[in-house]
């Protein structure tokens, strides 16, 4: 099973004198959940922003394989084409919804490109001609599907900003999924969720994976990471220090040292192992 969907090679990103990501290379496999973890300031979010087109990396390449063997260079695409051509969707660490618009409208905006194409530059749409009506019905059906998946159907006509925090997080995932991505990138999806919401999130992410979309996530909550990831990449100071299955990562001395600080070399396994194993 070596079907790679995302290949990051020698990715380097500098901000002035600070090298936030230094020659990072890793792969994410199709149909798997890949987690990017590391202590604060390790460069996870920077790497993530490079992949999703919010930063232009100084060096290195990022490519996505929509079908096995194909390759599309994401780092060559303009920002908005990452979602359109690259079919990579993302969510944000601090939820970025269109707060004043309704839940359903949020999901329709995510399907903008497909819908806009059916309106004939807006002209046919204004006149009510063309395939627009059918396209909109299809779009609403897709919205309905994701509203059901995220358990938001009841709130579809409410302003997105009026939802409770957990629901806003789910809506953001639903919105990203409405762009019909092959790779969904999640920036700390479990941040601020209570244990029950967190468990529901795990189930949702596993469902998305089983439906054929690959996932890449940054997460601090080891409970989520260890439970659902198929593959973990650990960063520290902008470099990859480990790469493997949750089981391998849990026992990796380098990772433990990075999380607990290098000073603890006398007693490397005691407290850190506890942190990492706190997840059943």
């Amino acid at each position, binding site marked *: 099973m070596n079907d790679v969907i995302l290949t990051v090679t020698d990715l380097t990103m500098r901000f002035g004198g600070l090298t936030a990501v230094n020659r990072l290379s890793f792969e994410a496999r199709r149909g798997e959940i890949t987690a990017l973890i590391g202590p604060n300031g390790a460069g996870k979010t920077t790497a993530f922003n490079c992949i999703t087109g*919010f930063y232009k990396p100084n060096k290195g390449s990022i490519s996505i394989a929509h079908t096995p063997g194909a390759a599309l260079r994401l780092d060559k695409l303009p920002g908005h084409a990452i979602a359109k051509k690259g079919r990579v969707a993302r969510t*944000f660490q601090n939820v970025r919804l269109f707060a*004043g618009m309704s839940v359903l*409208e949020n999901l329709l905006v995510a399907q903008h490109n497909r819908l806009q194409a059916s309106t004939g530059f807006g002209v046919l*749409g*204004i006149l009510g001609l063309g395939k627009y009506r059918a396209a909109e019905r299809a779009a*609403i059906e897709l919205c309905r599907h994701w509203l059901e998946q995220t358990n938001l159907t009841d709130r579809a006509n409410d302003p997105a900003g009026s939802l409770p925090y957990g629901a806003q997080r789910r809506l953001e995932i639903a919105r990203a999924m409405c762009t019909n991505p092959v790779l969904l990138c999640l920036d700390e999806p479990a941040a601020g969720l209570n244990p029950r919401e967190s468990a529901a999130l795990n189930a949702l992410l596993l469902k998305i994976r089983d439906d054929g979309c690959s996932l890449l996530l940054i997460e601090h909550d080891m409970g989520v990471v260890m439970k659902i990831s198929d593959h973990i990449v650990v960063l520290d100071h902008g470099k990859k220090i480990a790469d493997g299955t949750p089981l391998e990562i849990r026992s990796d001395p380098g990772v433990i040292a990075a999380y607990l600080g290098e000073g603890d070399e006398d007693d490397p396994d005691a407290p850190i192992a506890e942190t990492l194993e706190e997840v059943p």
Partner: protein
Amino acid sequence: MSARIAILKDAAAVAFMAFLIFGPFLGLQLGDSNAGNLTLSTRPELLALAVVAVFFARLGMLIWQEYRPARLPGTELALKVQESGRFIAPALLVFAVALPLIPGVQNVYIDLGVLIMTYVMLGWGLNIVVGLAGLLDLGYVAFYAVGAYSYALLSTTFNMSFWECLPISGLLAACWGIFLGFPVLRLRGDYLAIVTLAFGEIIRLVITNWVALTGGPNGIDEIPHPTLFGLSFSMAGGPGTFAGFFNILPAPGQRITYLYYIILFLALLTNWVTLRLRKQPLGRAWEALREDEIACRSLGINVRNTKLTAFAIGAMFGGFAGCFFATREGFISPDSFTFIESATVLAIVVLGGAGSQLGIVLAACVMIGVPELLQSLQIYRMLIFGIALVLIMIVRPRGFISKRRPTVLLRPVLRPVQVTEP
């Protein structure tokens, strides 16, 4: 109890400050004595009056803040207007269509209707940029000017008719909208406002100084009035005029009524396009852009093109309105396109509740109609007008109509009812 004392103390402190400030201005008066030297007299009554007035004004303000009702007066009314919007809008429309036909309506009121309708149209046009796309544009008058000068120059130079020039004016204004859009794509909020403000001034200054083309400060006059299928509204009557063709007496009311229906048509066109666009992907993308530009980009929306279409379409309607303005006035000069026009239109949009079509109509009636109707009050009219605006913004800080209605609703799926066979 202590709250009341605090209020009194505060009012007294403000009154003391008023005493310090007004003391030299009101309390002392310089005069000429017959001998030619200055005399100093005091006016304690006037000073006392001002200080007492300030004391009670401040007291009233504090009491209002302390004991203001949970629901401000006007909130109820505004909510009702909002809810009954679907009845009010058609009622207003019927009134607008019928206004010139009502017997006994004087031309001056129809003319006022034309003026208000022009601003309604400008407000609706600017609403696309400010209300929907959330791009603060302080130079909207530039597109108005482009439209007006397009018509004035085309008609006086090439003898083109109003109806031929109308689309060209809109198109040229839209081009300028895109032209302005490019440099400001990366700007937001205050910075965007400053650049658009400068753009408005640049257009006005170019018009003023390019004397060879635009006539400079002298403007362009003898701009032809619009014709109805080639029939002019000349007061001379005779063949080829409206009155001559229908064998009626020429009257100034005919031309005013015709102008009224043109602007009504143009304004309704603006409204219709905006309402349709709001329910289209483009309109939703504009609103999404207003809410969060970064999220838009992550969803694959081309932020640049979306902003440019907002600028272009908003500018196009500004150009149409400008074209109409030129044909109505018959004379245009740079003085008609100063910053105060942009500010008025923006005030209409903000006062109406950004994004609300009906709110803009109400705001245009208040902003344009009230000062005109108060003409008889002479110097006090702008004072009353200013106080009225401040009061409106206290009572309705987010505009007359600030509730947004979703453009699409999720309807429950109708599941087929299971019929059990008997």
